[in-house]
Every structure is written in structure tokens, then in C-alpha cells.
């Protein structure tokens, strides 16, 4: 395949998401179908999904979804994992052979918990340990990629059109309280299995339509804190930024949105609410290197919720719709209508205005 530089591909991409605020479970079939009317936004070089609440039987365990280039790589990686984790279940990822998806790597999943003795000797908490393990594997083990590492959630991705990727991974057999989806039209980087969206770390997942102009500035900054960008796609850095801001720095979702899609200084100066003005001045000053410039619409998935966000200039489209307990997000209204023809409220959030939806307490 020709990579960027040899060929130039115009930008596209599609995102879609759904969540039940009451925590009602939905199969992955609806989100797969939502990508069909947006078929032409992708070019078959990447599709993927994230589902939340899909592994209730193993909800106490981290679910690692992994790609291996060969059987030897897998054996090597399993030996490494067994020194650090109690693995309660390991299995080949259930997939369906279809003509539209070819050349798949070896795909496995593991349900595992970090060994207490290892955590004690390293003096780190469980999540930090899992994050470091993911970074270590993705950086140091050739031909091994962790593409999902959260509890009671999972990412499913491949090279292909998203509606085919959903069929390939048998998503209709999973039930989740929220789902996100992505159809890829790679612009600057090769289309390969690890480069498909979502990009995940722990329970955070990102699907993204756009192109990050500030990628290298963001990457250099975030790599100072132990993250390593190894997957050759700019979106990866957004996932690590969100993990850093939300988990490590303890910012709220709203504040994190104020960092990555910060308002212009002139907009901050014109704010009438003095507290709001101080907050935004602080966030832009404190985390200047994490401002993401260039066009984007993203959906962040996390345990118990979703956040949709556009760049501050709103250079990518995004619509939100609601019906009963469910909220739908997509690049196009047609995708929302495919999920719910009778959707009641439909609106387009402004650039930099986060839309945060949480499942009510105790329902997930």
C-alpha cells in the first residue's frame, strides 16, 4: 500500500455514538448500522467501535484486546503478562470470516488483574500500573499491540469499512450501555490495524474526525509524562492527553475540554462571568501545550459516559439527538436517524462546547 507522501488522500472520516442514560443495554448492531449512511466518509482503510458495559461477567478485570504479528510474539507477551497479572481468562477474539476483511493479525483477549505483590513493590496504583504496562508492550515488543485495556469495556477495530468491521467482530452478540464508532479516511498516516480508531487507554477511548495541526507539540509534551505515541496516527495523542488531564491531573471533563479546545483569548477577555474567565485563563496558561489545533470532532468514551467535542473553530460537523433515555451523536444527522428515526431533539453543539452525557449513578 502507498503511504502518505506517495499519495494524497482528502480528509473525511465519520464518528457515531449512542448512550442510554438509564444504563439500558443495546446490542452493537444499531451502532454498526449507523455507519452505513456515512459510508462515503470512509475509504475502507479503518473502522472501529468501543462498547461499554459489555463484559459484566468480568467487570472486575482489565480486558486486554491485543493484536499479534505471530504465534511466537503472543507466547512471549503472555509470559510477560503472567509475571505481572493474574489472567483469569484468555481466548481468541471471536470473529467471523468475511470477504470484506482480510489479512487480520492474530487477535486475542485476556481478562486479568494486576498481582498485588507487584503493585506493592512498585508502589503505584492499579490504573497507573496497567497504563505503564500498555505503554511498555506497545513501545518495546515488536509485533504486539494492546488496543484495549479497560474494565467492562472493549475496542474492536480493523482495516475495512466500519459496517463490515462490526460484522467481523460479531458486535450484535455484545450488549453495552454505550457505544462509539469510527469510519476512517486516513490523511497523513498509513491505514493499518493498529491505526484504526478508537484509540484507548484504560477505560478512555477516542474516535476522531479531523487532523491535529499541533500533533508534534502535543506529543512532545505528553511524552514527558511516560506516554509514548507508537501507533502512527495523530488521534492516539488525544487519548493520552485525556488520560493525563482526567486521571492523573484530576480535571473535570468540562475543564479538560477547556484545555484541548480552549476559547480564543479574545473570547476569554469578553467573558462576563469573572470566575469563568479566571478558570479559562488558568487552563490555557497551565496546559498551553495541550491545546489541540486544527479541525476535529471527537467522542470520548469513559466508564459511565460519553463526551462529544468539536474544535473551537468547528471545522468538522457533529450533531446530537435525544429520545427518551438515549442520546445519539454523529457526524451526520442521517446516522442519528438510522439509529432512531423518531429522534426528538436534534442540535449542533458549538465549537469548543463539550456535550457530556453520564449514565445515572448505579445504573452501570
Amino acid at each position: 500500500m502507498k503511504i502518505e507522501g506517495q499519495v494524497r488522500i482528502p480528509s473525511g472520516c465519520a464518528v457515531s455514538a449512542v448512550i442510554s442514560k438509564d444504563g439500558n443495554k443495546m446490542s452493537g448492531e444499531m451502532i454498526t448500522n449507523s455507519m452505513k449512511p456515512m459510508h462515503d466518509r470512509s475509504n475502507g482503510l479503518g473502522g472501529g467501535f468501543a462498547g461499554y458495559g459489555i463484559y459484566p461477567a468480568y467487570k472486575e478485570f482489565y480486558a486486554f484486546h491485543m493484536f499479534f504479528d505471530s504465534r511466537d510474539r503472543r507466547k512471549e507477551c503472555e509470559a510477560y503478562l503472567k509475571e505481572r497479572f493474574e489472567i483469569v481468562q484468555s481466548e481468541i477474539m471471536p470473529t467471523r470470516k468475511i470477504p470484506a476483511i482480510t489479512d487480520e493479525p492474530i487477535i486475542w483477549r485476556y481478562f486479568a488483574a494486576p498481582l498485588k505483590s507487584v503493585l506493592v513493590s512498585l508502589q503505584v496504583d492499579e490504573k497507573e500500573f496497567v497504563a505503564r504496562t500498555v505503554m511498555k508492550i506497545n513501545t518495546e515488543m515488536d509485533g504486539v499491540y494492546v488496543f484495549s485495556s479497560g474494565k467492562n469495556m472493549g475496542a474492536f477495530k480493523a482495516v475495512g469499512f466500519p459496517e463490515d468491521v462490526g460484522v467481523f467482530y460479531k458486535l450484535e452478540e455484545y450488549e453495552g450501555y454505550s457505544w462509539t464508532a469510527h469510519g476512517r479516511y486516513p490523511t497523513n498516516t498509513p491505514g493499518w490495524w493498529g491505526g484504526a480508531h478508537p484509540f484507548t487507554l484504560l477505560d478512555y477511548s477516542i474516535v476522531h474526525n479531523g487532523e491535529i495541526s499541533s500533533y508534534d507539540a502535543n506529543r512532545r509534551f505528553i511524552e514527558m509524562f511516560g506516554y509514548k505515541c507508537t501507533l502512527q496516527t495523530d488521534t492516539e495523542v488525544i487519548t493520552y492527553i485525556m488520560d493525563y488531564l482526567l486521571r492523573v491531573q484530576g480535571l473535570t471533563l468540562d475543564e479538560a475540554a477547556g484545555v484541548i479546545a480552549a476559547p480564543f483569548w479574545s473570547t476569554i477577555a469578553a467573558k462576563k462571568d469573572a470566575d469563568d474567565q479566571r478558570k479559562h485563563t488558568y487552563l490555557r496558561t497551565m496546559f498551553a501545550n495541550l491545546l489541540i489545533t486544527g479541525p476535529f470532532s471527537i467522542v470520548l468514551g469513559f466508564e459511565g459516559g460519553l463526551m462529544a467535542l468539536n474544535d473551537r473553530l468547528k471545522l468538522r460537523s457533529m450533531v446530537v439527538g435525544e429520545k427518551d433515555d438515549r442520546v445519539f451523536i454523529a457526524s451526520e444527522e442521517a446516522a442519528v436517524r438510522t439509529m432512531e428515526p423518531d429522534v426528538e431533539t436534534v442540535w449542533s453543539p458549538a465549537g469548543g462546547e463539550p456535550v457530556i452525557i453520564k449514565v445515572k449513578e448505579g445504573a452501570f
Partner: protein
Amino acid sequence: MQIIDAANLDYRAVNETLRSAKTDCTIKGCCGQRFIAAGMSDRNLTIEGIPGNALGAYLNNASITVKANAQDAVGDTMNEGKILIHGNIGDAAGYAMRGGKIYVQGNAGYRAGIHMKACKEKFPVMIIGGCTGSFLGEYQAGGLIIVLGLHKDHKRIVGNFPCTGMHGGKMFLRGSCEDIAFPSQVTARCAAPEDLAEIREYLSEYCEDFGHSVDKLLSAPFTVITPDSKNPYNQMYVAN
């Protein structure tokens, strides 16, 4: 009149059916098919469901009525004709249109009327019933944009940075616009009776289409925005 059932047809099939019909058409069950009626002339088209992006691109005097919301880039580079939307429209409506009319009952997204221009006898008109997002009339070079701010729900009639880079044409916003910041290269002033006389014809047509009263609409003050000179950005980047 021919009915086209768009369910399970992709954009190519819908457009081919439409082009071969050679008569007025109604598209039913539309769901995201792009480029509908691109470049089309001499035809009336009604759409039920959600048309995809670039509806009526390069439109050439066909008339399109959409009975729901429309997506992005409605009337992209439109030349002539009319697009009537009984709902909201997405971003970048009327991108570089140089003639024809886009009348919208509801709101518009970001960058409505971006790079709109007039050309010889061509004069594009866009009327938005509700509110618009930021960058309304960005780089506007000609034509007329009217925003009415009906059912605006305490929101501002336009978002941030309207008229950025505007260097031609006219914009009318219903209301006194004290809460809107305009760039320094344009002048915003209260519309005089002779200004309103210029837009009465278009507003009357809009009111007929959507069932409003033109006198009631015109009873509120309007703000009119024009660029300060033909070349307001002469020395913006280099001193020449």
C-alpha cells in the same frame, strides 16, 4: 411527478434516477445521500427525510423543498434556483454561491454564507429564520444575508466572529445587535427605511413560504452590516 424511494439507494443511484426522470420528483425516505440535484435545472424537487451533504451543489435554477433538516454545505457554489428548508441546516451553507436563494425556517450552523458573491446579473440571497453559528458571512464578497432570530430562546442571533473577512455584499440581522462584536473592517448601523425597502421583496417571499407576516417582521429594528471599503484588508498581512 415521479416518486423516488431512496431507502437502500446510495447517492449515485438516487442521483441517476433523479437525472433520468426529466420531470418533477419527490424523494421519499432520504437518509444522507449526498449531492442531490447537483447542477440541476428546470425542475421542482421535494425531499422527505434527511438529504446528505452538498444538497443542490452547483444548482442551476431547479427548485428544492426539504421537509426536514438538511446537513452540511447546502447550495455549495449554487448558481441559480431556490432551496427551501423546513428545518435547520448544517455548516457552510451557500458556500461561494453566486446566485439563487436559500431560505431556511430554522437555524443555520457555522459559516453560513461563507464566500458568497454576486456576479453581473446574479445576486444570491440567504434568509435564516432562526439563529446562526459563528463566522456568519465569512469572506462575504457579495449578495445578501438576512438572519431573523425568530424562536431564538435567549440565544444571541449569531455566534462569534460574524463578517470576518467580509469585503462585499450586505448583511441584515433582525435586532439591535448590541451583544454582537463585529470586526473593525465593517460598519454595523441601524437599518434605515430605504435599507429595509431593499429587502422587503425577499422577506415577503420568505413570509409566504413559511407563513409569517412581513409587516410584523419589519416592525422590529434591523442592523445592517457592510464592509468599509472595496479593499478593507489591503495592508493586513504586508505593507504594500
